[in-house]
């Protein structure tokens, strides 16, 4: 129940010391360049020459490769297979499987799409592994993001695992009273109501209590909020963000120019 509440891994690295906004911009820039660049190999190069080295620099390579084998490779592999078989482009049939044709073009298309998806997931993974959610939200709130919005994001990270645990308790309670949750599909579907009812109504009651609790701690105070964490935003961070923005714009221009 009290497992890790976010992907964040606490390490002492240059990447960890970057301003959270810089890391948001970095992750988004990598994704944008992968999707905008007109070359088929861009995403692959970004993965091996940018994201992987960044994960080493951030001392999170072990965690990154673990999620790569569990999520990134299966997800992009699935997309590759689906695109290769079902993308109706091209004439040069390389091989046939039952009624499905795999052409050279569909293979290239599948390669490009799946590597882009891999870059997208791995870029976010890198970002989540090296950025503490509360630091990110404190920084964004300081930059003008409404406090309520930041609260919703952060609290759902923490409250969802608690709700899962509660759902498990309700399932156990209802099963101990004879509710069938493991036989035929129809019976299981029927069992949803006595499971979801207590969870939803219970949560609604909790929402009121939690609202009172955070109000009691001045959540809607009109004072300018301060932050416990001192989140550094160095000149280097600012330069990096502008350079990254420049890279994205350059890629966009190249794409338009070459097409």
């Amino acid at each position, binding site marked *: 129940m009290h497992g890790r509440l976010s992907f964040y891994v606490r390490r002492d690295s240059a990447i960890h010391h970057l301003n959270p906004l810089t890391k948001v911009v970095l992750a988004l820039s990598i994704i944008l360049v992968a999707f905008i660049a007109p070359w088929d190999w861009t995403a692959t190069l970004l993965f091996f020459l940018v994201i992987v080295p960044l994960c080493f620099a951030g001392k999170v390579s072990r965690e990154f490769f673990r999620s790569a084998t569990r999520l990134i490779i299966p997800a992009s592999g699935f997309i590759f297979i689906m695109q290769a078989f079902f993308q109706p482009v091209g004439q040069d049939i390389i091989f046939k499987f039952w009624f499905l044709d795999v052409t050279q073009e569909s293979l290239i298309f599948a390669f490009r799409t799946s590597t882009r998806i891999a870059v997208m997931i791995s870029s976010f993974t890198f970002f989540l592994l090296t950025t503490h959610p509360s630091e990110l939200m404190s920084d964004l709130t300081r930059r003008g993001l409404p406090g309520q919005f930041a609260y919703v994001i952060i609290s759902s990270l923490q409250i969802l695992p608690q709700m899962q645990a509660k759902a498990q308790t309700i399932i156990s309670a209802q099963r101990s009273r004879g509710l069938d949750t493991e036989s035929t599909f129809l019976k299981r579907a029927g069992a949803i109501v006595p499971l979801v009812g207590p969870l939803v109504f219970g949560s609604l009651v909790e929402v009121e209590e939690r609202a009172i609790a955070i109000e009691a701690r001045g959540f809607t105070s009109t004072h300018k909020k*301060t932050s416990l964490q*001192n989140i550094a935003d160095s000149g280097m961070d600012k330069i990096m963000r502008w350079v990254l923005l420049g890279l994205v714009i350059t890629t966009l221009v190249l794409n338009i120019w070459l097409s």
Partner: protein
Amino acid sequence: MAIVNLQNVTYKYPLTDSPALQNINLQVKEGEFLAVIGPNGAGKSTLCYTLAGFVPHFFKGELTGTVEVASQESSKSNLSEWVLNVGLAFQNPFNQISGAKFTVFEEIAFGLENTGVPRDEMKVRVEDAMKLTEISDLADRSPYSLSGGQQQRVALTSILVMQPKVLVLDEPTSQMDPIGTREVFGVIRTMAEKGMTVVLVEHKVEWIANFADRVVALHEGQIILDGKPREVLTSDALLDKGFGISRYTSVARKAKEQGLWNKADLPITLGEAVEGFRK
């Protein structure tokens, strides 16, 4: 001098016919420890919400009379200012954890961040408050990984750190096991010793007997008794109305009927009961 002053307070929740509080007149002196007892539905929680400004600023409905704390009137203030006057902690420790913070230290600082306390002062205040409630060793733990008693101490510390003038506690130990109860009462004892003004709603009358300067008994939204703990907790007026009565008082009352208790006063604490029965 009275820091809390309720004059003719009557309150009705929206969509209800009968008032939850009726014509309440209550003054609490600065530094006084007031305990409130009452059966379920007596209006105890409503009284807490009224003192803490949630009635009428959070719960709508009809409020008449005046609620004053430190010479400020609740209806003329807003909730976010009022919480600096009155701190509220309640029953369920789990629901008092903000959910916005990942460590106990950050959790306690949450209220100070919201009210714009500068960072350096914030750190000092959080550390001091944690020392006071003896939870400094929990600073880096996730608030969700704590026991009920620890969570409730974190919730209390989160309120204390805001340095309210009055602390209102609505059955803070109702969901605690005996160990948790002892932990939480340890904090409450420290507050009382520091001279903080405390209003405590509690069913566990044995604990009240040890702490309170004064006890108020609430029944069907009205104050039916108001006086010294012994006066109120041993009063026959509490019988058959669903009030929690100390087991020491009950045993001695039965013993008195049988002629086995010879003292004039009924006991409210274990020590008094032991002493009385020895004689």
